[in-house]
């Protein structure tokens, strides 16, 4: 029994010590590997000399790369390339008025079309609060449509308020916006024709849908916490 225990202990030591060394955050453990052109040369032993050289300061060794390396990500961002025969979708210039639902809209008795699921406390998102992702159209509410990138956008009409034209895009199927449409049984359609349900999301983003028995034609804002359509009072 003693012998087997000794064998087990020896095995344990033999394997755990290298594993612990591997896991320890030391200078050598985090060096990047791979075919990059940024790997520093390994330290070499000093060449043997026939006679001791007079004392002189050692030449500075090139510093080993440490941490992460992003040599190309400096300076201003390059302009997006223009796709052949296409146009670049860029964020429009700041508009004088950004539509936003006031936090006290309920106390002001704005008409609400209740979500059939009656979500509360971010219930539609497993209780996880939704927050903006600023470099995406509609702050990411309608999908991962990065501003400045021309792929992944499907233009779906536009809405004009007389001064500005607001482009609309096809909603990504797993986005919160798609869940909103699904909850109300709405089907997205191209913006432009009259008598549609026009929904204003974050950052002046807008999408349109055919009306149904729950939602009548008109303009609506969105309460992202409860995924509710709110009808602002007519000006």
């Amino acid at each position: 029994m003693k012998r087997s225990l000794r064998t087990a202990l020896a095995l344990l030591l033999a394997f755990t010590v290298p594993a612990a060394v591997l896991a320890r955050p030391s200078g050598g453990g985090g060096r990047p590997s791979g075919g990059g052109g940024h790997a520093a040369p390994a330290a070499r032993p000093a060449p043997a000399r026939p006679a001791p050289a007079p004392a002189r300061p050692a030449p500075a060794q090139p510093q080993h790369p440490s941490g992460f390396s992003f040599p190309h990500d400096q300076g201003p961002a390059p302009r997006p390339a223009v796709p052949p025969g296409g146009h670049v979708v860029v964020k429009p210039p700041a508009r004088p008025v950004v539509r936003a639902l006031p936090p006290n809209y309920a106390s002001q008795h704005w008409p609400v079309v209740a979500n059939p699921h009656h979500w509360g406390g971010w219930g539609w998102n497993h209780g996880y609060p939704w927050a903006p992702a600023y470099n995406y159209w509609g702050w990411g509410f309608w999908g991962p449509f990065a501003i400045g990138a021309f792929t992944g956008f499907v233009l779906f009409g536009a809405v004009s308020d007389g001064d500005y034209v607001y482009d609309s895009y096809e909603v990504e199927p797993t986005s919160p916006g798609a869940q909103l449409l699904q909850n109300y049984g709405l089907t997205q359609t191209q913006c432009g024709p009259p008598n549609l349900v026009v929904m204003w999301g974050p950052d002046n983003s807008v999408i349109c849908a055919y009306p149904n028995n729950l939602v009548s034609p008109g303009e609506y804002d969105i309460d992202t916490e409860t995924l509710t359509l709110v009808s602002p009072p007519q000006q």
Partner: protein
Amino acid sequence: MRLIRRSLALGFALGLLLGVCANALANGTVRVQQSDGSVQKYPQTRMAWTGHALWLHSADGKGVLEITTGACTYVNDLLRCYPNGMILHQNGKQRPIAVRRGTIYMNFTDQQQRLPLSSQAIAPQALMVAIQTQHGTYVTVRGHLDGARHK
């Protein structure tokens, strides 16, 4: 009887060994493809989620990449976020890295979860990241989360 005891002892030792190794390797790999095509891999990167940001600590302890996120939503049982930006904390400085687009998927469940519209899956307590920077660098991450604070 002696053989059984020896087998039990060996099994115990192997179990301990596997446990220690699994703990030591409970992290992931960051792959950075520069715009000139060169690639660096950073194995054994420690990863932590703090509710709004993903922190990637290089194994040598000298660099930390902070990925700030937004628009986090649950897609089935996976939490999906979009990167707002990246900050490289290194050499006592903070350097912002502009993000063009990307996606972060995290699986906080104890079961493997399949990505939406994909055959790929994410292991329990693991994550997957794909980010393109404004300068054309691609950052991909796969691995297990060492720590997570959900909100």
